[in-house]
């Protein structure tokens, strides 16, 4: 099964225009290497699902005009402040927003994981979020133990999950440790594409300690080695974000021209997206 190993460019080629693409937050596993390759190949019309929020990946894809719809509980760059290209796109009215809340996104993915059409979720009743979602509704407890309404969310089944992980092996197994939102994403999605800092020489499922934090290859379509592939974002337990680079990004991304210069330098220039290696 060693044909599961491929290149970052191939991963980007496997994400079609218009795909429903699940992405993890900056504190989880972000395949920034593939995000750059996706922008380089000019992907269009993505429906990005932030699980449950999205950070630099989302801001860059939005800025590069790759995103038609954004479904998320938040766009957050954490301590770096507001996301500039997201904010600009909202102001320009070029982005279709599907505003959600974290547990509803997890539950929608869990519904897809279980192959059921919907799942009940606590809370939300009385939130204006509910008014704008035709994929959320309210019902009642069929066992009659509660009188009040309960929100039910439709299953969220992404076409593709794209993540970065510390380790993956030649069987397609991917070690994600306690960052199990990526496990849920892989289960819920039709395909999962992965970059990994390191190709593990062996079978991650054969090591009892590693196995418990591993997404089985069963769910994984392709893996590419990308050393430091989350750069300039950090990777849990491995490395922090590149603060100087991210501040430079934020400064440039305040304007469309500045953002274009960032893309020219770090995405479109030959081999630019490998700059971190």
């Amino acid at each position, binding site marked *: 099964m060693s044909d599961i190993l491929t290149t970052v460019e191939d991963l980007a080629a496997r994400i079609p225009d218009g795909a429903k693409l699940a992405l993890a937050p900056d*504190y989880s596993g972000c395949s920034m290497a593939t995000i750059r390759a996706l922008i380089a190949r000019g992907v269009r019309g993505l429906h990005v699902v932030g699980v449950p929020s999205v950070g630099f990946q989302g801001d860059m894809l939005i800025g590069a005009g790759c995103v038609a719809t954004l479904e998320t509980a938040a766009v957050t760059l954490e301590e770096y402040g507001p996301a500039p290209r997201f904010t600009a796109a909202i102001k320009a009215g070029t982005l279709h927003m599907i*505003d959600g809340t974290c547990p509803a996104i997890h539950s929608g993915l869990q519904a897809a994981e279980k192959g059921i059409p919907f799942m009940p979720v*606590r*809370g939300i009743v009385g939130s204006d979020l509910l008014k704008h979602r035709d994929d959320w509704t309210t019902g009642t407890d069929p066992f009659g133990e509660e009188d009040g309404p309960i929100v039910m969310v439709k299953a969220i089944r992404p076409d593709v999950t794209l993540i970065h992980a510390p380790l993956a092996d030649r069987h397609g197994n991917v070690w994600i440790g306690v960052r199990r939102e990526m496990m849920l994403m892989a289960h819920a999605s039709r395909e999962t594409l992965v970059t990994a800092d390191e190709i593990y020489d062996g079978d991650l499922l054969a090591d009892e300690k590693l196995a418990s934090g591993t997404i089985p290859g069963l769910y994984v379509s392709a893996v590419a080695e990308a050393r430091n592939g989350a750069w300039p974002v950090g990777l849990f337990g491995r490395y922090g974000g590149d603060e100087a680079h991210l501040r430079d990004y934020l400064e440039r991304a305040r304007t469309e021209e500045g953002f274009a210069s960032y893309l020219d330098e770090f995405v479109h220039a030959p081999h630019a997206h490998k700059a971190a290696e």
Partner: protein
Amino acid sequence: MNADFLPEELLIATVADMLAGLRHVAVGAQSPIPGTAALLARARWGGALRVSMLGSETNSPFTDGGRELFDCASQGRIDAFFLGGGQIDGQANINLVGIGDYPDTKVRFPGSFGSAYLYFLVPRVILFREEHTARVLVPKVDFISAPGVSEESTYRKGGPHALVTGRCVFDFDDTAKRFCLQSVHPGHTVDEIREHTGFDYDTPDHVPETPAPDADTLALLRGDVADAVAERYPGFAAKIFGAANAA
């Protein structure tokens, strides 16, 4: 302003007092003052309080991915949580989405995160927003990310406990469904609060000053707690405790 402590230290000690007797408090990402308050509360009660800091690699007890915090809250295992808001109104509704007529917001905030859920499930939700202006504390939020109160029939195990700002502490009265001014921070006045608050609230005849942290609390805060905070919020820890310890 009392020169013996920083305004942030007052806020930290004030919030820590609200966590007395609890078993488990969770703190969201990018919440240095609430996070420090939780660590102070834990230090003060000899470790009996469990503190779960999201995004912290040493204080997060979760091993089931992003959903676990929410599941855990719904199981009744989280006693207190903190929420903020781009806008907060007098019924304790919070808006984390934007200003204007959604979806055409004039000002866009990051989004609702888990507020629409945790506000219903965590018994003691402490609203925290340092900026105390009529721009933030509005008569009616433009978008309800999470409602402060619900109808009787709604399954709701939690809700607003208090609102802590840079100027004062409001208590939330579950029966009246409105805020009541509880204390005013040293250096601020009841009239000033009125001027900078866009929503209507109750004011008792006598409004005390928010109690200053005592020497033991400050020593704990600037010692062990500062070290623990530095792991999660190095910049914040350096700014506050560097300054406080140098003072």
